[in-house]
């Protein structure tokens, strides 16, 4: 059994609601894309799921246990969070950055054990960064750095991955690479929730999409239903062209719909 529930998640700050009454249930094997315009509350929703922000109402549950009641360590073993600001503050060696992923398992200053090394090796293989290990992380390209940070996340072995715009600033090659890695995690029985701006990636890689606007859930479900012409035009204020293809479809934003202030 492996599931992630959001129950009436709400966050209001000074009376303004950032996230408004959002509920859903995800089972193992699901990749959920959070889509919506800038400022819709996608990142905040992700932080509420990760227990980085405390909701005003509602709660988030992992296997029916509220995340706020899980011990910190256990939560860190279960949920991996990939922050939007993919920065590393010191010029650390790539190998060390990946090793940081094992610190949630470390008590005191115990040396790396065999299972730590195995997890690190697996994470390095999964993200294909073995050739970067001796490089300094601050000198890497955006795509390489994102893979290194993903390797750090996989080294912790979380079942649930929450990723905030993991492909926003990457070139097409690395976009596909990162999306494939996340997709694979879900397909192997994990759960992935990721904020995405590219609706085509969202439609192609995610099992489910959650469309959010001004903190409210507009739609949740299969990509082809959520990204209906009506929904997209209403939420994003753009006209779109759709090309249906076997198994998938592409969305091309066409023109802005002038705001009616």
């Amino acid at each position, binding site marked *: 059994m492996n599931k992630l529930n959001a129950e009436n998640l709400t966050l209001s700050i000074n009376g303004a609601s950032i996230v408004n009454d959002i509920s859903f249930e995800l089972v193992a094997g699901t990749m959920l894309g959070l889509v919506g315009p800038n400022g819709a509350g996608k990142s905040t929703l992700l932080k509420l799921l990760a227990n980085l922000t405390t909701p005003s109402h509602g709660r988030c549950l992992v296997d029916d246990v509220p995340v706020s009641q899980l011990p910190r360590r256990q939560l860190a073993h279960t949920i991996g969070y990939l922050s939007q600001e993919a920065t590393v503050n010191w010029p650390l060696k790539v190998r060390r950055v990946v090793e940081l992923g094992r610190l949630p398992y470390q008590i005191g200053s115990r040396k790396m054990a065999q299972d730590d090394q195995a997890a690190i090796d697996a994470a390095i293989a999964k993200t294909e960064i073995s050739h970067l290990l001796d490089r300094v992380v601050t*000198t890497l390209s955006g795509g390489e750095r994102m893979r290194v940070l993903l390797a750090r996340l996989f080294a912790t072995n979380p079942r649930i991955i929450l990723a905030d715009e993991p492909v926003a600033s990457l070139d097409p090659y690395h976009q596909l690479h990162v999306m494939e890695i996340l997709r694979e995690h879900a397909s192997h029985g994990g759960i992935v929730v990721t904020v995405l701006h590219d609706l085509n990636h969202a439609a192609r890689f995610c099992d489910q999409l959650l469309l959010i606007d001004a903190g409210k859930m507009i739609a949740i479900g299969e990509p082809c239903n959520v990204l209906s012409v009506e929904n997209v035009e209403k939420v994003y204020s753009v006209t779109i062209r759709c090309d249906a293809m076997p198994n998938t479809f592409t969305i091309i934003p066409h023109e802005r719909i002038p705001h009616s202030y």
Partner: protein
Amino acid sequence: MSAFHFDIGARLLLSGLTILLVVLFFLDLSFGPVDIDVFAALKNLVTNQSHSQAEFILLEIRLPRALLAALVGAVLGLSGAALQGLLRNPLAGPGLIGVSNCAALGAIIMLYFGLATVHWSFLPLGGMLGALMSVVFIFFLAGRQSSMTGLILAGIAINAVASSATALALNFSDNPYAMSEMIFWLLGSVSNRSLSDLMITLPFMVVGSALILITKNFLDVLSLGEDTARSMGFAMERYKSCIIIGVACAVGAAVSVSGNIGFIGLVVPHILRPLVGHEPGRLLAASALGGGVLLLAADVAVQVLSPTQDLKLGVVTALVGGPFFLALVYRSRHDVI
């Protein structure tokens, strides 16, 4: 230019610094106006044989001085490394959050009211009380959940208040003797301190350092940002409090016995960072040893340069540290960090 790494291995670096520390410690013991046989006197002290002049000089003058130089340097280096790691900024130092100045103010108040002459322990106690006040102010101004910017701003405010109050004490000091005593104390020195001075401040330095050292893993994880650190199970507020209270205890105790000794906390982590692969966690222990080494070296230099007049240690560290730091900044101005 990318950041340079001279990672020479944890064990080699730490043992090298330890050897250097021991050598400089004995070198510091052997300097002084009177020539004594340090090893013979030490042996006599341990075996409790005849206590002649040499043993007296060693026990009352040189041991406190060398021990304090090593300890104060270690505490300053460690605190600097911890604050630079916490704020993820290589320009942070122990003075940044206002602890040094508040500790100095506490001690100055004791000197101003003449309480320091009532009992020797009032001076260090006043310093530590001042350091404690700075922590209260920090948490009052910035709060437990403050941002890093909030913390720095609170530090600036506290520093301003403490230094103006110190200036006020100097301004209203009614006799020139008290005033010069305060100024000399402010300049920073480890000479003319007793073992009792050391013993009263030692527990605070040890507890403070321990509080800082337990944040080792947290500082490493914090390299990836606050949200990531928290998502990895590290309670941001708890560790931040650990570092601030630890720095206040350790630096407060150090300043309260030695006065203000600048630049050690800033320069030492900066020099050692490339040698530990820029890892903020490993930098802690290295900076503690490095701080001890540097301050002992500075104290030896002070005694070589002015065997008779008492050149103040704090003046030397500032005079050497300032330009040295300028050179470091100049050289690494195009680095990523």
